[in-house]
């Protein structure tokens, strides 16, 4: 749709970290426990309790910062963000304001027309999550809300992008890229539905060519990539309708409703809090020495971008295959384990993206739990390569491997699936087939060469698929023209 307006999008993403314990106390942060059982004086905000920073959170923040091309601040500060809400036990959230741990990063994305585009990352900072409210559902409790502080003090990274995206698709490309990176790094489990990766989108539009940004609306907590796209597109349309009708966009926070695909105003700019940020006097400035940053950099895994390029240049995969395999760290690892055992990257790629992925999707299981290991898969692929079985038979064998967990060779042996490469045996089959179809043989000889396919099919059928297709073709040609 050609619009009169240019869209401008900036994204704030909250990444919940996979540390064992909370950011400022030693409580476990396992999801789904009985309310208020994963708590202590610190995360309950009891009088006199004090926060102590979890070093693992800093390590994860540095990892994420390095992987997104940020500068890591040698000195950063925790600040208090003050506001009242029942799920916020201290009446303030410990976050970072001035001097966050990571600044000035970027990620490159592919736009709709396959062009590479750089999206700036303003900052990434560490903060604690709040608890949650559970509203009474029974008759007696309908006017009651319950506070569960298990999630309070869970470590988050908040990453704030520059307003560099110009469409919902670019926003999604950026989010997917960031999501891929934090999952790759192992700092986040990436589960959008459980809120491990939460996105707020700042959306504004402006007439093409206008320099100043339009008034923005902030879209809150949308829990799937699909809904984010939907929410942004709805918002663009809503703002365009406003401007078209001569109205103004007002600065506000809006909540997206995935049921209706629309959004409603949550609070206006006038109702916005004055958070009265100031440095948290309970925490000393965080000083990070260069050696630690260097050590973390050393230990970073190969990131999807680098992996994709390597799969293309070193393994000769197509850009498409390389992209798909590199997108999932475990899938890529499986693939890479197969390659040296077969010496055929393309074949491995086809099978990992094909049969393996299909089985995983159908069974909804993780690749790390797959009943066929890379070694077993390579065992099967090598039987294709040495002509023991055809690709078609291989799929049947694979199916059986997946069910039984047996090796390919054992199945091929037990089921007698070994390809027939004995030319006299194939000749005998062919002669039988020609004898049984004299009419077609005569037509072929009269020039109807299309019938070759018919004969190949008949021979393969007679061999129960085991005859070597190349040999069948060759011998058939000889016999029919003879």
């Amino acid at each position, binding site marked *: 749709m050609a619009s009169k307006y240019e869209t401008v999008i900036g994204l704030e993403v909250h990444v919940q970290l996979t540390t064992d314990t909370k950011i400022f106390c030693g409580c476990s942060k396992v999801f789904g426990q009985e309310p208020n059982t994963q708590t202590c*004086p610190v995360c*309950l905000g009891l*009088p006199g*309790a004090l926060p102590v920073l979890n070093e693992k959170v800093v390590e994860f923040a540095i990892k994420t910062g390095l992987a997104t091309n940020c500068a890591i601040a040698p000195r950063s500060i925790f600040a208090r963000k003050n506001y009242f809400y029942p799920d916020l036990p201290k009446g303030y959230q410990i976050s970072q304001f001035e001097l966050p741990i990571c600044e000035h990063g970027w990620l490159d994305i592919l736009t709709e027309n396959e062009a590479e585009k750089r999206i700036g990352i303003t900052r990434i900072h560490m903060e604690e999550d709040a608890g949650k409210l559970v509203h009474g559902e029974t008759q007696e409790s309908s006017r009651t809300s319950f506070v569960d502080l298990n999630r309070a003090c869970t470590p988050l990274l908040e990453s704030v992008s520059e307003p560099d995206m110009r469409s919902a698709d670019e926003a999604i490309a950026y989010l997917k890229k960031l999501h891929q990176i934090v999952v790759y790094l192992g700092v986040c489990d990436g589960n959008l539905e459980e809120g491990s990766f939460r996105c707020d989108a700042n959306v504004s539009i402006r007439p093409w060519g206008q320099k100043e940004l339009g008034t923005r609306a902030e879209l809150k907590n949308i829990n799937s990539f699909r809904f984010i796209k939907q929410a942004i597109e709805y918002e663009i349309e809503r703002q365009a309708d406003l401007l078209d009708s001569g109205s103004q966009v007002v600065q506000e926070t809006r909540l997206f409703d995935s049921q209706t695909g629309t959004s409603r105003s949550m609070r206006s700019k006038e109702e916005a809090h004055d958070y009265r940020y100031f440095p948290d*006097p*309970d925490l*000393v400035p965080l000083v990070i020495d260069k050696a630690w940053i260097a050590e973390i950099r050393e230990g970073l895994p190969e990131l999807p971008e680098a992996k994709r390029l390597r799969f293309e240049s070193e393994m000769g995969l197509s850009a498409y295959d390389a992209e798909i395999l590199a997108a999932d760290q475990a899938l890529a690892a499986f693939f890479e384990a197969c390659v040296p055992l077969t010496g055929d990257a393309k074949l491995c790629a086809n099978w990992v993206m094909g049969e393996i992925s299909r089985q995983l999707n159908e069974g909804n299981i993780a690749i790390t739990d797959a009943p066929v290991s890379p070694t077993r898969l390579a065992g099967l692929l090598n039987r294709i390569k040495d002509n023991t079985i055809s690709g078609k038979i291989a799929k049947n064998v694979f199916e059986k491997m997946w069910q039984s967990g047996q090796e390919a060779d054992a199945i091929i042996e037990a089921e007698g699936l070994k390809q027939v490469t004995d030319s006299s045996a194939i000749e005998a089959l062919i002669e039988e087939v020609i004898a049984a179809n004299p009419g077609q043989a005569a037509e072929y000889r009269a020039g109807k060469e299309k019938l070759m396919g018919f004969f190949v099919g008949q021979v393969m059928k007679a061999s129960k698929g085991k005859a070597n297709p190349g040999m069948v073709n060759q011998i058939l040609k000889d016999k029919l023209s003879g």
Partner: protein
Amino acid sequence: MKLYDLTLTELRARLDNREVSSVDVTRAFLDRIAATDDKINAFITVCEAEALAAAKAADRRIAANEAGALTGIPIAVKDIFNTSGILTTCGSKILNNYIAPYDATVIARLKQQDAVILGKLNMDEFAMGSSNECTAFEPVHNPWNTDRVPGGSSGGSAASVAASQAIATLGTDTGGSVRQPAAHCGVVGLKPTYGRVSRYGVIAYASSLDQVGPLARNIGDCALLLQTVAGFDPADSTSVDIPVPDYSATLSEDITGLRIGLPKEYFIEGLDDDVRRAVDQAIATYRNLGAELVEVSLPHTDYAVAGYYLIATAEASSNLARYDGVRFGLRSAESDSLIDMYTRSRAEGFGIEVKRRIMLGTYALSSGYYDAYYLKAQKVRTLVRQDFTRVFEDVDVLLTPVAPTPAFPLGEKVDDPLQMYLSDIFTIPVNLAGTCAISLPCGFSDGGLPIGLQLIGKPFDEATILKTGYAFEQATEWHKKKAAL
């Protein structure tokens, strides 16, 4: 001599020699509290059962020859310290039903030694006040003259030592809250360097200034209590991991040649005549002891009180946000919405001085005012700290009055917050600088009220102010005077 009139050192010897049991001593103190506290009102909670149980445990430990310095010694603590299973009010109505579920680190350290905790002491609400009149539990009275204030905010901590209701006590000092009441009640009170003693479990007023301090009848006892509570605590990120020296070991060191600075900004017009006379006498005493006395300057002193009341109130406005009626403490029964619950609970639960400081601090942090107030105050703080750093290149200790006047009458300043705030002008700069200081008795006013002397030391050099104070104590008799109750 009555058991409750002994010093810690004397009592230690009697306990260790089995001349007396901790249970007997504890009973003596509980009786003393019962006999005197209707006049003083130092205690919010007396923990009789817990104290006697601790005394029994201490006696077993003494019998096994495993006693530490405080084993079996009756101590009382300001009601700002979390004490597991015991009411912990912080002097506020908003916590008048709050049973702490855990021990502050300093309480745990006392318990490790089987010290006997007699009870929880009255204080200005959330440690905000200089007279102990801002309490939800009726004012504390000065044992030297019960019409006078004991000082604040650790008024109960000072008054109970002066009234022989405890051997020693713990208080907290944010702008003078240990030293000023110690001076007004004629006892010794020490504010350690920021980071020396753990703040974990100490209910926060102004986190960057709060520090736990011991109060006792003399320097030696004060050193022993400090020894027990001082030291790094991994649960407090602002506590500092440097070794704690043996304070008692260096108390009697010679102070000949010690350089004592007299900051001219502390000897000002308006200083009470009696206070000036007593401090001048103390200066003469030090000269006789062989110390070198030199005039020095702390040029930014004038800005300290203003800076303090911005930083402390800003931090307090945030620290006190957790008293919202949601999880613990007072919740207004009448509220019919969330906002209503917040506002009514806080309106009913907080006293006027606390509300005033929350308002001040909220204002100082507000968008548009932050730079002019909070940030400016932080700059003042840096300048005040630099004043001390510079002057300590030249001298070992600073000597000043603790408060401009002796204890004032109850009710005199309660409606005049500015006058009240000025009673801390000599103590506040030390908190801003983060260094240590001690208040010790140095005389009496014509009206018979105690006067305190302040010795300020270099950061983490509590040992030097203790030995400097000890030398004075050895040369004078002030610390031996007792309030007649």
